[in-house]
């Protein structure tokens, strides 16, 4: 029960942070955007670790016993992971207030900026779909739906 509450609050924090990061000018400027953009990786990894049992189970049985819904969720989660990685990587490439020039990521600034915008927009949409698919769990947490004993 405590774990579920922790998961819920952590997920809410992740959504709020993600929304605040969607516009660099909305919340305390670029400095916040870049630092929080790096930090967002932490709750995301935590979210993955908290659901590790499910990930392990579906990964092992992906091509054999998994049901269609679990497979779809799994593919969506892999896309989300790819989106998050691209978002953070492109953010590092175009960072202005934190110096990452030593990383020498290559590519033009225009390309990385396009990558950053597109990956963040697509990830936001995937986040929305991910939440929609887990709506039953959210309802249970908010006691909107009775949990079967």
């Amino acid at each position, binding site marked *: 029960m405590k774990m579920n509450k922790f998961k819920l609050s952590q997920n809410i924090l992740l959504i709020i942070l993600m929304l605040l990061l969607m516009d660099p*000018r909305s919340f305390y400027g670029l400095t916040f955007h870049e630092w929080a953009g790096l930090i967002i990786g932490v709750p995301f990894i935590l979210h993955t670790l908290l659901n590790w049992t499910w990930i392990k189970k579906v990964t092992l049985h992906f091509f054999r016993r998994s049901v269609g819904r679990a497979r779809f969720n799994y593919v969506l989660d892999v896309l989300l992971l790819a989106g998050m990685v691209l978002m953070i990587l492109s953010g590092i490439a175009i960072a202005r207030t934190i110096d990452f020039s030593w990383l020498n990521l290559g590519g033009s600034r225009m390309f990385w900026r396009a990558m950053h*915008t597109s990956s963040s927009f697509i990830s936001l949409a995937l986040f929305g779909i991910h939440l929609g698919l887990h709506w039953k769990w959210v309802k249970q947490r908010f006691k909107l739906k009775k949990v079967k004993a």
Partner: protein
Amino acid sequence: MTRKIIFGILAIAILVVGIMGFKRLRFYERSAWVFKTNSEQSFRRGRFERGGNEGREFRSRPENFREGERPDFRNLPDSVRQRMLAERFGGQAPDSLRRGSVRSAPGERDASGERNFRRDGRGRGGRDVRLVSVGWFLAVFAGFTVVTVYLDKVIKLIRRK
């Protein structure tokens, strides 16, 4: 039943605001931007890159500045701009226009030793928090969630039948 109707109305409202946000943020265009960009294309800071139309919501503009003048004005060299400002305002130019080049690096220190966060989006109109665009992003996010929830319900219903 009443609860279902209320939730239904709420879902439609979220969907409508979500579609508005989708159009306003040019969500599709910006999502597909990377697929239209060449990896070696040179950087040019255009309107689209600056955030399209929604960027206007949190960008303050001097009251006595006429519509349509700003883009050309911003591209002028500093010396020419200073001269134009002197001619137009006679030394009474708004502070936001009188300062140095808009192309200066973010966080760069000015003569007084203060960091220049104008390009960081800070210090515009003295406000650090502008949540209008965040609200539109929330609307789009909620829209995707609502569509998925109801689509999931429809698919389950079809399968059951």
